[in-house]
């Protein structure tokens, strides 16, 4: 059972970025201004610690979210997608004229009891 998944279109862009930049991570940015987006960085570029929750792995890329934010997101299932457009962050896909985005849905009861056991 996976908490984070990725569309094929987004996976292709991830592979393209891996070829150029090497190992990568996703960090779901806080909901603010240009945020609320999954940002992709070179592994090691962003300082991570125990306050960053590892939600899973997509296309060989670990997907993290800050603990504060996770409290409000833990009942959701996430899918990374990609679309045309211009974000304003330091995320590596921005210069391609693309940006990653998240589709979210509520976890099913089965998923919820698996990921958030009472």
């Amino acid at each position: 059972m996976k908490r984070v998944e990725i569309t094929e279109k987004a996976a292709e862009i991830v592979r393209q970025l891996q070829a150029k930049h090497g190992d990568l991570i996703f960090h779901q940015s806080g909901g603010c201004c240009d945020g609320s987006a999954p940002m992709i960085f070179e592994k090691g570029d962003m300082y991570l610690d125990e306050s960053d929750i590892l939600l899973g792995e997509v296309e060989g890329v670990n997907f993290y979210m800050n603990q504060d934010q996770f409290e409000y997101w833990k009942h959701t299932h996430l899918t990374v997608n990609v679309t045309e457009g211009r974000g304003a962050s330091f995320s590596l896909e921005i210069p391609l004229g693309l940006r990653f985005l998240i589709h979210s849905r509520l976890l099913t009861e089965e998923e919820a009891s698996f990921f958030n056991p009472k």
Partner: protein
Amino acid sequence: MSYSKPVFKDKYSNFINGKFVPPVGGDYFENTSPVDGSVIAKYPRSQKEDVENAVEAANAAKDAWGNTSAAERARLLNKVADIIEANLEEFAVVETCDNGKPIRETLNADIPLAVDHWRYFAACIRAEEGSATELDQHTLSMNIKEPLGVVGQIIPWNFPLLMLSWKLPPALATGNCVVLKPAEQTPSSATLLMEKIADVFPPGVLNVVHGFGPEAGKPLASSSKIDKVAFTGETTTGQLIMQYASKNLNPVTMELGGKSPNVFFNSVMDEDDAFLDKAIEGAVLFAFNQGEVCTCPSRILVQEDIYDAFMERVVARTKAIVQTSPYDINSMVGAQASNDQYEKIQAYFKIGKEEGAKVLTGGEAAKLEGDLANGYYIQPTILEGHNKMRVFQEEIFGPVVCVTKFKDEAEAIEIANDTMYGLGAGVWTRDAHQLYQIPRAIKAGRVWVNCYHAYPAHAPFGGYKKSGFGRENHLMMMNHYRQTKNMLISYDKNKLGFF
């Protein structure tokens, strides 16, 4: 009255060392207008080399500029103010075209406020004094303020010229040279300003480099040849910039996001008078600037005994908002600044509905006609729910407000502070005790009391919690751009007697 899209050149350059120079790599990106989706012009897609050239020019200029008298620096800041003011309409139309905000706001708020910030810091630098203390009969401690040197500034797209005018004047007034990167969504007004003021400052004092975050923003923030980074924007990017700065032990100031509560106590409805009318407008200010404000009052908290009556009037006032061409002086809410925002806001509508929020009005994109059909318009929207919902916790950056009710003062404070941000807040009441005590209890850098969305120079502005730190718009900002040189002077002729 209505304006029309201004005329632009096909492409523009960076402004480095007093000259317009094309990007070294020869790459450009296309900038579009959110009003109708049309192309504005091409702007440089700068890379590390361009940033390095700008940083080098700034370093070459910093000694002379740092030694320029306060009188001369202030004169040049005032000159910039005069030039913007003399071309106010032109700047306003360009800003509306590039950002999508209504022309009545650029004419009456963005551009006049920008002018005032230049004048304010010109005045501050003339009026301030250093300090000296006689520590004992023979010893004087003298404090001299020195510029840091070269400052990197990265600004957002929601108030392009105004954010530039919050950042540049305190840095320049205090004798620093600057490399500024405007947001790639809204490079136009910064470029227009450089065209108008190209000869005002000595070459290298002020440099503007366009481009994307990972390609131009990162090299600027991580450069070992700058002395400070100032950033307004999003929290994750803020964290990254702080990390890069930490490698150089550089100071930073950060103005980040918010999820600001706007709290209405029951006394606002004691009378049906001008003040109640003001309070209702205060609630509807969530739609100001399409909600693309870091202090957007995006959570309305209403005391439960007036909730129905108060919200009925807020909903009616929201429905009366005129949404037409941003170039039309009657337009109250314009286009979202980008397709990115436009889609994100709609995704939040879906999230809110899934979480069980009730739509009181709006809740969809707005379809405008003709050329505007390709623009990015959203209906002003009110969602009703509770504070644990994602739409109550995340900054939507659209004309969208989430409303909930509270029982008493304690619950109002608890909900108001239940957020990771602390930038702005509003408190509305006729009760003299609440007027003081509630704002003191809210953890935010700016609490508007019986008003909202005023940003005058000389009222310090900045965040608590994950909304950042530093206080802009106020003379205290000058010290964020300076060192203190302490000279400890002995007037004693006699030796210590140690050796």
